[in-house]
């Protein structure tokens, strides 16, 4: 298809290009003339216009998405709140305005001054937030002195409101003004200083989903910066709603059962990893934290010796005490170091090296097999298991159960705990592993530490014969625009491959802990449901011979553990309870676990009767 023949001479067409050129010259001349007109003829007029530009862009904060529990009970919403902004460029008499403001609002002059000079507020003409949540009285005072308060703007904005106060505070988290560091990090040019963002908990993790989109209002202002006319409005888009996996009723009971004690309760559905309740005490009121907190109040909270801001469920690292015996049992049975029937004599202590490792029961338990050793929590039996296994084989099984690593729940700053190995000792302490340390480790003391959520997941894994799920808090997200619900399916982490007989033996023993006469967890016995569990008492200080720890001051008393699952025949819930300085696990930690389990199972959910 050669279309370009020798007769293809374009001269005739090219001769017409002159007309095109004339048109182009005319266009350019017109543009240049127009620029001349604007810049030279009317230059001074526009110069004045630009110097007195009375147009401002005001940002409209979106309401954050709502947070519900698994049944749609509202946990967090938004309420209107009056916030005070200043536009410094509009204030001519800075001192006068600040003096007046300091009198009207509950804020001292120095702090006001500091806020204004803060480097994060350096965008010209950008209203800067000075105070949130003004009282009606403050609003009335400011409004009535409008004329004297140039450059002040009162804006009603949505304020986060947590309906149950401190309930599940660590899990929900709180919101606060974006910090300069966070602003840097966000990397999004649309994120503005002054935006409220999640600062901890779910609010932080899912911030991008629930924050919504900031709207804009273009307004014309008068000489003192007060709004005269709205030129254009772009409404904000509210954030998406979150449905949590927690059950508000179970959470309430757990909060109540833990009471004033410092400690934590984690309840989890072992069949899918959904967190049903997560309590950490002492707690804080996220409502208080979500309003701009004065530095003094913040100081009080963050330096509180009770560490109310710490989420003990995922950040508390405690020695597991006797609850660790689940791991030791698994390892010993699986490596065939012991059979369930092998008798081992407990005389109240075990001589190893040049030291006697004592049993918690003076005088000993007598002849023990695996079942009775778990039921009565015999230490000597497990010293012997530890001696046979050695630390590295023991650690191997702990790792398989997910200890020594974060569970990966959707909350920031989760701790991993420590599962020591001989390698670890050399790396961390610079000295070799001593065999005696294995004995301490095998009753969950010494270097071993775990987080309560790891333990809840551990006993859930045992209940499910090794199937592990990723613990998670979000059941679904609902898109505010389309109304569509995006559900989060459970994530299976794999299976801890042990013989079914091993799991059966351990579960039977755990059931015995609660139901048998000598069981250490008798306080968790329930008339409604069969519970299997394990007590633990984690020493805070190395017990000295002859010193009864109960006589020690509170802060030196042992931590009480109880981990449980129920119903034994058909596990639906796994719970870990830790009461700091609560003494014996069977006494203080078992009753709350029982209450949480009963509350969850009384809801008469149709239980799938599955033969295990």
């Amino acid at each position, binding site marked *: *298809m050669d*279309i*370009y023949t*020798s*007769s*293809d*001479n*374009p001269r005739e*067409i*090219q001769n*017409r*290009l002159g*007309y*095109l*050129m004339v048109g*182009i010259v005319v*266009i*350019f001349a*017109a*543009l*240049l003339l*127009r*620029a*001349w007109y*604007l*810049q*030279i003829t*009317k*230059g*001074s*007029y*526009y*110069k004045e*216009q*630009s*110097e007195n*530009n009375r*147009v401002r*862009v005001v940002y409209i904060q979106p309401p954050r998405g709502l947070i519900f529990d698994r049944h749609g009970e509202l946990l967090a919403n938004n309420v209107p709140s009056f916030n005070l902004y200043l536009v410094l460029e509009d204030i001519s008499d800075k001192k006068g305005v600040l003096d007046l403001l300091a009198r009207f609002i509950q804020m001292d002059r120095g702090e006001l001054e500091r806020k204004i000079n803060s480097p994060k507020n350096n*965008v*010209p*003409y950008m209203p800067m937030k000075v105070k949130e949540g003004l009282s009606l009285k403050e609003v009335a005072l400011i409004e009535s002195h409008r004329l004297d308060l140039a450059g002040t703007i009162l804006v009603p904005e949505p304020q986060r409101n947590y309906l149950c106060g401190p309930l599940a505070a660590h899990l929900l988290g709180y919101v606060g003004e974006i910090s300069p560091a966070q*602003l*840097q990090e*966000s*990397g*999004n*040019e649309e994120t503005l200083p002054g935006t409220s963002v999640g600062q901890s908990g779910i609010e932080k993790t899912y911030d991008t989903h629930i924050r919504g989109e900031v709207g804009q209002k*273009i307004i014309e202002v008068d000489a003192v910066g007060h709004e005269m006319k709205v*030129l*254009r409005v772009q409404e904000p888009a509210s954030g998406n709603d979150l449905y949590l996996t927690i059950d508000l009723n179970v959470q309430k009971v757990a909060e109540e059962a833990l009471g004033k004690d410092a400690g934590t309760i984690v309840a989890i559905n072992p069949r899918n990893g959904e967190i049903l309740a997560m309590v950490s005490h002492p707690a804080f009121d996220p409502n208080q934290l979500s309003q701009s907190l004065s530095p003094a109040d913040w100081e009080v909270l963050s330096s509180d010796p009770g560490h109310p801001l710490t989420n003990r469920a995922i950040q508390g690292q405690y020695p597991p005490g006797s609850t660790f015996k689940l791991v030791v049992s698994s390892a010993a049975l699986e490596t065939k170091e012991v059979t369930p029937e092998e008798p081992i004599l407990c005389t109240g202590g075990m001589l190893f090296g040049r030291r006697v490792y004592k049993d918690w029961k003076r005088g000993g338990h007598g002849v023990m097999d695996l079942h009775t050793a778990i039921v009565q929590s015999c230490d000597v039996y497990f010293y012997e298991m530890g001696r046979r296994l050695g630390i590295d084989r023991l650690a191997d099984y702990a790792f398989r159960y997910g200890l020594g690593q974060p569970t990966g729940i959707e909350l920031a700053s989760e701790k991993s705990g420590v599962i020591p190995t001989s390698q670890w000792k050399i790396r961390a302490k610079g000295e070799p592993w001593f065999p005696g340390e294995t004995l301490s480790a095998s009753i969950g003391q010494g270097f071993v530490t775990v987080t309560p959520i790891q333990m809840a997941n551990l006993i859930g894994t045992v209940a499910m014969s090794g199937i592990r799920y990723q613990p998670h808090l979000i059941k679904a997200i609902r898109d505010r625009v389309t109304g569509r619900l995006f559900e989060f399916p459970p994530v299976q982490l794999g299976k801890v491959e042990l013989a079914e007989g091993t799991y059966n033996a351990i579960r039977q023993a755990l059931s015995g802990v609660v139901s048998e006469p000598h069981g250490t967890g008798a306080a968790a016995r329930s008339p409604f449901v069969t519970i299997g569990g394990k007590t633990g008492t984690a020493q805070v200080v190395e017990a000295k011979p002859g010193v009864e720890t109960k006589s020690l001051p509170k802060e030196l008393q042992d931590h009480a553990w109880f981990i449980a699952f129920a119903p034994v025949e058909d596990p639906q819930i796994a719970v870990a309870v830790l009461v700091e300085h609560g003494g014996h696990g069977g006494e203080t930690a078992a009753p709350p676990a029982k209450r949480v389990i009963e509350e969850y199972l009384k809801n008469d959910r149709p239980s799938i009767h599955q033969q295990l």
Partner: protein
Amino acid sequence: MIDRRFISSFDAWFVVVVLLILSLGVLSIYTVTYTVAPKAHGAIYTKQVIWIFLGLIVFFIAASIDYHEIARFSTFLYAAGVVLLILVLLVGRTGMGARRWISLGFFDLQPSEWIKLIVIIVLARYFSNRSHPRGLSLLELLVPVLWVGVPLILVLKQPDLGTALVLLFIPTVMIALVGLRSRTAGFSVLVSLMAFPFIWEIFWNVLKPYQRNRLIAFINPAVDPTGHGYHALQSKIAIGSGGLFGKGLFGGTQSQLKFLPEGHTDFVFSVFAEEWGFVGVLVLLTLYFLLIWWGIDAANKAKDHLGVFMAVGVVSMLVFYLAVNIGMTLGVAPVVGVPLPLMSYGGNSILTTMAGLGLLLNIKIRRFMLFY
């Protein structure tokens, strides 16, 4: 393809002009994003520099493949372009009320930017394929109307008003160059007049409310209670306040204080004019004029009809964008949202403009060649 002839006929000053305009664009983007978006600031101008480098590659590719070869593939390119335009409507990414982009992960492809070049090539081939001693007959006019009509409707559907208008402008210039038989001309005028109310109706209906408001605001700024003339007004203030010598780099209060929206994209000229004043505007318009003149020169020296029409197509595309974009910032054209070639931020605009300029160079360096 880089042979001796290529180098000897290589018009160095043309490349210098292009690079100068590109640099002024990057400079304006740099200053306007400096305070407005301190974090994203680095990202925006470095991205633009990356686009410019890619644009230079595209430029040399477009210049080195013989334009007859390109024309041979034009039907295929056209089909691909139309498919992409349909894809945009089906799976495109929505932004600012229009569905214009196909997200490729690292890059949002905007097929409506590319279809203009393809239409230029297709039409150039069509017109060069005929000898027209007495101008186009009615039937011959119908074919280019169809070539343009399909993408035009798809582009209006997005809606992308700026591209739709340029798709009308390019063939108009070409047809004017070829000439119409008097009967064809008369008939076209008649049909256009009769069809105008209907076409206007369709056209008006596909516009988004904000686009209608902009047109209304342009025709009568007084009927503008909700401030749809905001862009134009702020832009006029920005340019006007620049005066003779401008406010200097970073000195533009309009752009720095964020009164002026889209300072790095559609309104980059306002930023430039505020900072550099009338003197800067004079220099910039001169640079653009040199570019256009060079393009006309390429058309004038082209060896064959294909070359002439391609060059004229690219030139008219550039002229249209310059006139509409700068006219818009100066308040003499409606705010239709077209980029300023070589200066506005954006990969699609940079790449397609550079490809168009590459075609011009292509035509120019092959003016001495005979047959292939």
